[in-house]
């Protein structure tokens, strides 16, 4: 099984002051097999969105590489980059700010087609837009509508149609459903899964919501402050969460079962900014199992069998 997308020790530091750096993504290695879905989970500030933009080449990396179909996207030529762009797309979180309010649905969906000269003439382009609208379940009567005339679910369908316009192979879904209502959320998730089956798409699914990612992912990566702390197949991760942070995340999700939170499992403190972080485990300050040796040196992801990787000294 060879990955269609692979990152090697990917790092992105943002300068936030004189000689101070925010380690948004710090040495992340991921690999996504063709046709699979990788879930990237973490709280705000963990670098998951930055990671998504890095693998698409929308941001340049501080160091490390991303290979798409064997091509290093940071050092390839313009031609190769253009073809990568065509094969890699993104669906944004907020269907309200990701659509230009002054463009009609037709203009929005046809933009990628025009820009990449994917259709020979207008008639063909119109046919393709209509086809795409049909695919994502948008009625044709909306073709001249503007985004503000539509609700969140329909807007997100436009976003999906745009992403699919160039027949990509790989799509980064950056929290595609977190701005939507529950019933609409399920519609969009089902749509994404149907699209994947039909077109053999590969997804990188970024979210803060473990319950959403459980359904759609084959493999899940849990991130904390720019680093990957745990990686496992979806079922394995939910059955047997190893890293104390993953455990805390799972127990913090309010379940629709009457009762009160288990107070003893609550995490202390809050997520801090990864600005010039100290060596060692970045979660140590909030961890109930933290030991003195947790803050001595870098902690590597180690496999504990069953393709289950965890970066924690508890499992050494």
């Amino acid at each position, binding site marked *: 099984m060879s990955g269609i997308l692979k990152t090697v020790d990917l790092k992105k530091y943002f300068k936030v002051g004189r000689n101070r750096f925010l380690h948004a993504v710090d040495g992340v290695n991921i690999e996504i097999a063709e046709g699979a879905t990788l879930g990237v989970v973490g709280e705000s500030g963990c670098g998951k969105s930055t990671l998504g*933009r890095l693998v*698409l080449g*929308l941001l340049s990396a501080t160091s490390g590489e991303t290979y798409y179909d064997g091509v290093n996207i940071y050092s390839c030529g313009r031609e190769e980059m*253009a073809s990568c*762009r*065509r094969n890699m*797309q*993104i669906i*944004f*979180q*907020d269907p309200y*700010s*990701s*659509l*230009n*309010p*002054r*463009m*009609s649905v*037709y*203009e929005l969906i046809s*933009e*990628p087609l025009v*820009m*990449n000269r994917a*259709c020979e003439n207008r*008639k*063909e382009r*119109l*046919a*393709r837009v*209509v*086809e795409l609208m049909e695919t994502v379940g948008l009625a*044709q009567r909306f*073709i*001249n509508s*503007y985004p*503000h005339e539509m609700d969140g679910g329909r807007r997100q369908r436009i*976003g999906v149609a*745009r992403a699919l*316009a*160039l027949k990509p192979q790989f799509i980064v879904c950056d929290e595609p459903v977190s701005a939507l209502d529950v019933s609409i959320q399920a519609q969009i998730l089902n749509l994404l899964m149907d699209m994947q089956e039909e077109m053999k798409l590969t997804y990188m699914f970024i979210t803060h919501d473990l319950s959403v990612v459980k359904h759609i992912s084959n493999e899940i990566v849990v991130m904390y402050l720019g680093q990957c702390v745990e990686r496992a197949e979806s079922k394995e991760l939910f059955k047997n969460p190893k890293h104390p942070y993953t455990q805390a995340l799972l127990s913090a999700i309010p379940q629709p079962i009457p009762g009160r939170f288990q107070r003893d499992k609550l995490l202390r403190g809050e997520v801090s900014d990864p600005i010039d972080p100290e060596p060692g485990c970045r979660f140590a300050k909030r961890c109930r199992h933290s030991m003195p040796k947790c803050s001595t040196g870098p902690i590597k992801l180690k496999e504990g069998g069953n393709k289950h990787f965890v970066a924690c000294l508890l499992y050494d």
Partner: protein
Amino acid sequence: MPDHAAFLTPAAGAGLKLKKKSRAKEVWRRFKKNRTAMAGLFIFALIMLVVIFADMIVSHNTAISQKIRDRFISPGTQGHIFGTDNFGRDIMARIVHGSRNSLLVGLGAVACGIMIGGLLGAAAGFYGGITDSAIIRTMDTVMCIPLMLLVLSIVAALGASLVNVLIAMMIANVPHYTRIVRAAVLSVVGQDYIEAAKACGTPNSWIIIKHVIPNAIGPIIVQATTAVGIMIINAAGISFLGMGIQPPTPEWGAMLNEAKNYMINYPYTVIFPGLSIGLTALSLNLMGDGLRDALDPKLKD
């Protein structure tokens, strides 16, 4: 591609009409609905007619020939509808012929200022970083010099003439518009749809034209329309100092300046040129507001 062609069967394509071409029509339709904007357009159209047919309305000679005997004739008497000024020149003739010069200075300075300032501001806002710093610091430096002083020194260097006043005012305006456009662009650049466009391979130039400018244009239009009146007054100030339009060439601002000494006894000498400037500024302002609303699909109907 055959599969796409197959899609355009009458069933799929029937009843499907794209409004693509009618964008301008759509804007015009919404503009028409706005009564105040239409009033502005009407006044402005009248002013433009006067500009174009000035020579047919009254001869240029009437506007500049002086008859000291006929000083300060009240409006409506002896064939002078707006009366005469301190040199006995017919005020209406001067207003009709002054319209060309005044509008040229007002509209010209603002339009060129916006064009150059807009490009600089858009580049600064869109690219950020060093480009931004370089442009904005330069503009701030220029802004430090008082507007009048800057204009005067440029006119002094180039020589006194209408065209040179225009150039000077344009240069003096650029920093202002750079600032406004940059602020408007910055508010747009942070939006996700800019990134979405980048992700589907849209080149930067197209992003600026298609995504940034249409969304940033509202405040710029409003600023520009109010600025025209101010520009006419500023040009008058320069004429007053003897650096701008040379007498006896008629120009609204210059007329105001000449008349201000007689304002108490012969108020009509200031009222008519003042009214002309005011009406021009008002009409443009009403049109500007209407245009801003008409361009925004969110305010549709």
